[in-house]
């Protein structure tokens, strides 16, 4: 192969023969592991790939996946969804957000229910469409409910930049952007988590660079391998983690080197810094409060901040998940979804009680969806 075709970027990294070959190699090399490899894939995109392609069934018994908190929809606490609903209920307001958020239940309702009741709630393909909607509706307020990890934050920053430079005065922002490293620290810091290796997120790392995971190997003595989202990438990443464990190394490695560098997308990082700053506290559904784990608008853009401008309509009470939900325990690798009393009965994707069942990137949702694969 001398010239890359677009098809190669899909098929080449999903090739069943390559997946089998890597599985055989992992099976061989994992025999030398002195303890089971309990590897956390932090990102929901990886959880989805792992379950969709049935990767656990290709691996030996001493390799276990622990599914992380990297699903922006799943970790959104109910009180933040209630904010979106309260904003959508204001007179002359259009609430816009990325599609994933529409179905997620808050404490009493969801954006889908509100939309059915006649509120103007619009899913976006790209944040930039919010600018167009604001310009087309000068007599209305448009509120962008911004969600996502580091991958999605620069797109919000680009929209902010456009709104500020073009002086669009009827577009507001409700910022819910969260950060990966503090969430990993929150899971690892109490010493209970049974995790001894990490698969680092793919596209978060494209933006931030792999450098954001640099402290982890030293702090927790765990290998970190930044992987792509395709099944071949994940299998190659597991092989790299197995090799590190066998050789007694704990290092940061990049498997996804076709897209990830150590430094990341510097222009995107600068754009984020221009408009957003660390937020001192953010409550994660299933985990609880994590200090400095999210972003907020800088003070000079308070006039765009829906949380400040419309503070009087926003509820302030934190709302916890159902007490039978064990998502927090699942995220630490201390339990599997099937061990939850309400899994698949009182808690299903159509009616989730807890965070891990909310979106297809959540661990419980993926187990429910691909239960047939689990045999």
């Amino acid at each position, binding site marked *: 192969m001398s010239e890359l075709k677009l098809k190669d970027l899909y098929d080449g990294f999903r090739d069943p023969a390559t997946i089998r070959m890597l599985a055989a190699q992992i099976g061989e090399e994992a025999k030398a592991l002195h303890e089971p490899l309990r590897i956390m894939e932090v990102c929901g*995109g990886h959880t989805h790939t792992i379950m969709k392609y049935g990767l656990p069934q290709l*691996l*030996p018994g001493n390799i276990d996946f622990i599914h992380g908190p990297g699903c922006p929809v799943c970790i959104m606490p109910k009180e933040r969804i209630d904010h979106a609903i309260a904003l959508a209920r204001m007179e002359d307001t259009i609430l816009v957000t990325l599609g994933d958020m529409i179905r997620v239940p808050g404490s009493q309702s969801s954006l889908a229910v509100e939309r059915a009741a006649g509120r103007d709630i619009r899913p976006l393909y790209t944040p930039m469409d919010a600018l167009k909607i604001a310009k087309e509706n000068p007599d209305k307020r448009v509120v962008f409910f911004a969600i996502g990890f580091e991958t999605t934050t620069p797109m919000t920053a680009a929209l902010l930049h*456009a709104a500020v430079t073009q002086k669009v005065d009827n577009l507001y922002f409700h910022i819910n952007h969260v950060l990966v490293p503090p969430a990993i620290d929150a899971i690892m810091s109490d010493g209970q988590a049974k995790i001894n290796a990490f698969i680092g997120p793919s*596209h978060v790392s494209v933006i931030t660079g792999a450098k954001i995971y640099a402290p982890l190997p030293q702090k927790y003595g765990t290998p970190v391998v930044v992987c792509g989202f395709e099944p071949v990438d994940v299998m190659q990443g597991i092989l790299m983690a197995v090799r590190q464990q066998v050789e007694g190394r704990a290092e940061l490695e990049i498997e996804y080197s*076709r897209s990830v560098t150590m430094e990341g997308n510097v222009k995107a990082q600068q754009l984020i810094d221009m408009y957003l700053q660390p937020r001192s506290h953010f409550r994660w559904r299933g985990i609880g409060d994590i200090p400095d784990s999210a972003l907020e608008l800088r003070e000079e853009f308070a006039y765009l901040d829906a949380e400040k401008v419309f503070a009087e309509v926003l509820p302030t009470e934190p709302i916890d998940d159902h007490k039978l939900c064990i998502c927090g325990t699942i995220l630490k690798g201390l339990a599997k979804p099937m061990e939850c009393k309400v899994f698949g009965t009182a808690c299903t994707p159509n009616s989730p009680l807890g965070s891990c069942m909310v979106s297809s990137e959540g661990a419980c949702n993926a187990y429910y969806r691909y239960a047939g694969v*689990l045999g």
Partner: protein
Amino acid sequence: MCLSIPSKVVSVDREKNSAVVDTMGVKREAGLDLMEEGSVNVDDYVLIHIGFVMNKIDEEDALESLKVYHEILAKMDEEERSRVVLEDDNCENRGTP
């Protein structure tokens, strides 16, 4: 949510600071706001995420990875390959998730 899809740049509009890309045969527009000026050109491979180009895919690197896999697979002759596959099918130490 985060699944950015590899795409090929078909055309670049410097005026609008956007590009038309081909994603598995579907043509669509993507913003270049996150990319350094002049860094994205026709025939580049890029990742698109919610309407923006977020990076350029390193073509050499992708080719190299695929080449390595092809070479390993080619080394396994037919008999070896079927042995691995059959062994894998009958693996008794299958990990349960």
